[in-house]
C-alpha cells in the first residue's frame, strides 16, 4: 500500500444510526491516525459538518430524522460544506442512482456488510484525490 502520511490528523465525520457501526469505523480510523467525529442521524451530521468542517464524511443512507441523501443535499447547498467529499456506507447500494451520485458529488459508495480495511482505503483514496485536485 502506498504510504500517504499527509492523511494523518485529517478530520472524518462518521454518520450512522447504528452505534456499533459508528464505533467500529471510528476505532479503525483512529487506529490509523484520523480524528473522528460522530453523529447518529443526518440532521445531527449536518450540524456537526457545518461547525467542524470535516475533511471527509462517511455516512449511512437510511437514518431517522434526516437520511444520508437529504444530509448531502443540504451540505451541497451550503457554500461552507459544498465541497466536503462524502462516502456512502449503505445496506441499500442499489437505491442510489449513478445520476444522483454524480449530481450530489458522492465520491464512493460502499455496501454493507463492509470491510473496515476497505473503508479505510477508500477514505485514503478519496482524500488523496481531493488533495490532488486542490
Amino acid at each position, binding site marked *: 500500500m502506498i504510504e500517504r502520511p499527509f492523511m494523518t490528523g485529517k478530520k472524518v465525520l462518521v454518520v450512522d444510526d*447504528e452505534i456499533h*457501526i459508528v464505533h467500529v469505523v471510528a*476505532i479503525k480510523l483512529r487506529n490509523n491516525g484520523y480524528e473522528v467525529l460522530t453523529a447518529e442521524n443526518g440532521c445531527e451530521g449536518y450540524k456537526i459538518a457545518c461547525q467542524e468542517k470535516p475533511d471527509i464524511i462517511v455516512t449511512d443512507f*437510511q437514518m431517522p430524522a434526516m437520511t444520508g441523501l437529504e444530509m448531502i443535499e443540504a451540505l451541497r447547498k451550503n457554500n461552507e460544506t459544498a465541497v466536503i467529499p462524502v462516502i456512502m456506507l449503505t445496506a*441499500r447500494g442499489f437505491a442510489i442512482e449513478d445520476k444522483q451520485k454524480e449530481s450530489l458529488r458522492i465520491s464512493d459508495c460502499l455496501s*454493507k456488510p*463492509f470491510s*473496515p*480495511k476497505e473503508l479505510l482505503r477508500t477514505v485514503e483514496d478519496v482524500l488523496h484525490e481531493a488533495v490532488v485536485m486542490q
Partner: protein
Amino acid sequence: MGGAVSSCAGMVCAFAGVPIFTAAAGIIGIAAAVTAGYAYTCIWNKVEKVSVKLGVPCGAGGALASIENVIEREKVQVDKLRSEVDQLNIQIMLSQRQRRNTEEIIYSIRDAVIVIDEGEQILLANDTLGELFDFDPQAGKGKTVGQVIKCPEFTNILRQSKDSKTRHSKHDITISKPDGARIFSCIISCIYDEKHNICGVVSVLHDVTREKEISQMKNEFVSHVSHELKTPLASITAYAEMLADGEASDEATRTEFYSIIQSQAQRLNRLIEDILNISRIESGLVKISKEPVSITLVIRDSAEMIKSYAAEKNITVHAQTPIVFDQVMADKDMISQVVINLLSNAVKYTPAGGQVSISSEVNEMDNIVRVLVTDTGVGIPVDEVERVFDKFYRVKANNKVAKGTGLGLNLVKQIVEKVHDGRVFVSSKQGQGSTFGFELPLGVRQSS
C-alpha cells in the same frame, strides 16, 4: 285435370282428377275418378300419406297406379325438401343459441372484452368494458372505438395492433378513474379470415392494480428485510475483521468486540425467526402447544424484559394487572412474543422521557381477557391506523422515527387472531400516542 288413361291391359278409360289445394300448404292431394265400365274414385291424401280408394276397382287400375307413382315421387321430393328445411331451421336455431351462449360467456367475463372489425367498428363489448370506459355497450355496437372510447392510449394500441398485424400483443395501460388510476394488462389478438387477412381485433383488459401493489409491497419488503438483515451482519463481519487484524489492542476491547458480535448475531436470529414465524403461521405449519397461561405473569415478565431497552431512552414502563383469574389457553412463548412486540414498539415510537404502560382487564360477561399497551409516542395518522397490522406496512411519517420491517405487528395479529381466536385493535392520536391491545378468550377455571 282429365283425359284418357291407358291401362296396362290396353283398355282406354276416362280419367278425371282434381288437385286439392290449401293456401298454406299448397297441394295436399288429388281426387280422381276413372270410368271404364267400373267407377273408381281415389283420394290421395299426402298428409296422412295413404290412398283412400272408394268404389269398385275397374280395368283402369294400371293408369291409376301411374298417377300414384308420379304423386309418390312428388311426395318424396316434397318430403325431402321439407326435411332439408327442417334441418336448416334446426341449424339456424343451434347457431343462434351458440352465438347467444358465446355472447353470454363474453358478457359474464369479469375482465373487459371488446371485439372490433377491420374498420374499427365495435362488434361486441361487454358490460365491464362499458363501465370502464363509461359507455353503453349495446348502444356502442356498430360505432367506431374512437367515437365511444375516450382513452387515446387504448384506442391507439388497438389501431397499432391491427395495422401491424401482430397476432398477439400485451401492454400495460393506466386508466384514470374517479377513485384513482388503475392499471390494466391489455392483451390484444388479431382475428384473421380464411385468406389470412385481418378481419377484426379482440382485446381483453385485466385489472392488475392490486397485483402491482402487492408486487411493489414485496419489493419494498425485500428491500427492508435485506437492509435489516445486512445491518447486524455488517457489525458482525466488521468486528470479526477487526479482531482478526489485531485492531483490538487490549483484552477489554477484544471482549467488547466479542460481545457486540454475539448480540448482533442474536438480533439477526430474532429477525429471521420473525420472518419464519409469520410464514409458518400463514402456512399452518407452526407448532402450537397451548397450556393454561396467566396473562398477569406474561405481562410482568415482558415488562421486566423491556425495561432495560426503555431505560436507554429514559422511558418509564408501568405494568398494572388485576388480582383475578386471568388464565387463557395459549402458547406461552407466542403470547409473550405478542406482549414484547407491543411493548418494544411502544418504546421505539415514544420520544425520550415518555411513558409506556401495560394493563390487563378481565371481562367475565364476555369471557375475555383484554391487554392494553399505551404510549405517549408519535401516534399514527388517522388514514393509516387501519393498515398498521398489515404485513410489511410501515407508517410513512414514522419511517424517520425508527427503523423496522413492518413485520412485528403483523406477527402480533397472526398469533392473536389466527392461532388463539382472539382480536387485535388499535387507537391513536397523532402526536399524542397510541393504544394497542388484544383480547383472548378466558380459559376454563379448574375446580379444586
